[in-house]
């Protein structure tokens, strides 16, 4: 069943080309086109509907223990108003989902999970609640907007007093009034740029969306679709669940080891301790014409050593790049990628492909 977000009518009105994603119908792009939207976020600002994301509210005396046991990152050092990226694992050490933990207090956390995984995560979290923990899936109550780009703060500051704008990366403010409703604002995003994610009551989403577009227009703010959300996160080498991550990939094989803390307990830790990683995530630049897409096979000479998890033309760099999952022991400088029957040379390059400089 495909759901609409609270912004469905607004997307259609703004000329969004609507597609199904993660169980929701969302714009892949607007009439401006993917590359224009991509560049708007890199140079000015873009706004995305991310209302499809799931919000899990976890509270009670057992909230800390429940979250700490579920996730492979350590939430011990979090202050109130901190966000922390993490994954939760299955008993085999595979990845159930990757998400951000929001700490409101010692007894109140949010997990903001991927849309397509929300039903699965809901069941998984419910099955792993420790005593004195209350779990409420609030996904349908909240709309979510991502305001991203170097001018995001300037735009937000037109309707939010500076003191309510979260200062540090991966921090958030709570109970912030925008257009007459209380919102949560975090300095987070999925584009590689500075920016904010705004959580608001579902029915206020459209008002806030239109208000931001109105006040941001003079700074180049435009609505952006899922297409450029993907190219932006890809250039920044942020993994996308279902592509770089899934239930069958060991958490230690996906290039996110800094988010795995083996000195604490968590679901899936035993499997990680017992199973050495066989694969790794690497970035490549294609050295010939052509575009490697997801599932293209990667070779070292005649030997298949892995496959592409995301690949396309990089709008910012102007050439084709890909993220690949290849054997951990491969240490060469180049690989060959099978692009629809033709072998194309690709060079291993440093990740991320793009890093902001401000």
């Amino acid at each position, binding site marked *: 069943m495909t759901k609409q977000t609270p912004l469905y009518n607004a997307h259609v009105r703004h000329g969004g080309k609507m597609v199904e994603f993660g169980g929701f119908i969302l714009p892949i*792009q607007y009439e401006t086109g993917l590359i224009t939207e991509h560049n708007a976020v890199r140079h000015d600002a873009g706004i995305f509907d991310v209302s499809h994301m799931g919000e899990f509210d976890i509270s009670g005396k057992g909230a800390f223990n429940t979250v700490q046991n579920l996730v492979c990152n350590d939430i011990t050092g979090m202050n109130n108003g901190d966000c922390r990226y993490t994954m939760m694992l299955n008993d085999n050490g595979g990845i159930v989902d990757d998400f951000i933990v929001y700490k409101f207090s010692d007894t109140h956390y949010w997990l903001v999970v991927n849309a397509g995984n929300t039903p699965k995560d809901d069941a998984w979290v419910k099955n792993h609640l420790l005593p004195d923990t209350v779990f409420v899936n609030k996904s349908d109550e909240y709309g979510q907007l991502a305001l991203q780009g170097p001018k995001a703060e300037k735009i937000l500051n037109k309707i939010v007093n500076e003191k309510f704008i979260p200062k540090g990366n991966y921090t958030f403010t709570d109970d912030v009034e925008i257009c007459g409703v209380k919102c949560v604002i975090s300095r987070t995003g999925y584009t590689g740029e500075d920016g904010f994610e705004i959580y608001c009551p579902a029915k206020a989403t459209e008002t806030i969306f239109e208000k931001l577009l109105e006040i941001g227009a003079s700074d180049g703010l435009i609505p952006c679709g899922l*297409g450029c959300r993907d190219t932006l996160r890809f250039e920044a080498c942020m993994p996308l669940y279902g592509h770089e991550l899934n239930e069958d990939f060991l958490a230690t094989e996906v290039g996110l080891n800094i988010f795995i803390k083996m000195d604490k307990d968590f679901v899936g830790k035993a499997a990680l301790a017992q199973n050495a990683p066989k694969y790794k995530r690497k970035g490549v630049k294609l050295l010939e014409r052509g575009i490697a897409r997801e599932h293209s096979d990667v070779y070292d000479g005649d030997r298949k050593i892995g496959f592409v998890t995301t690949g396309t033309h990089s709008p910012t760099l102007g050439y084709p790049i890909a993220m690949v999952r290849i054997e951990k022991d491969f240490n060469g400088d180049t690989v060959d990628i099978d692009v629809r029957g033709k072998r194309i040379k690709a060079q291993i390059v440093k990740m991320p492909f793009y890093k902001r400089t401000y």
Partner: protein
Amino acid sequence: MKQFTKTHEWVSNQGKTVKVGLSDFAQKEMGDIVYVSLPAVGDTVTIGKSFSDVESVKAVSEVFSPVTGKVVAVNEELLDKPELINEAPYDAWMIEVEAAETEELMTEEQYLEFIKK
């Protein structure tokens, strides 16, 4: 005068040869085009067979030949500037062919009617 295929190519009669490109509808559906492959001069193209891959940021699409015959010229400018197909699809011809045979084509009017469905 341009004629069209059901797979969204256009054909323009140049006398002894025809030029083939992608329709405005096709380029809009694909979005920003970032890569085009072309056959070599002297290659033979065949009705209904793919002669080119056109890649947008999102996906790859094949371009099917509306004619059978020998390729006498290719628009090499597209290799470096594939975005020309987005900017001016009816100027951005892809191949020029000595066509021995041509599939049944639609007039522009018929084609515009066809894509409405």
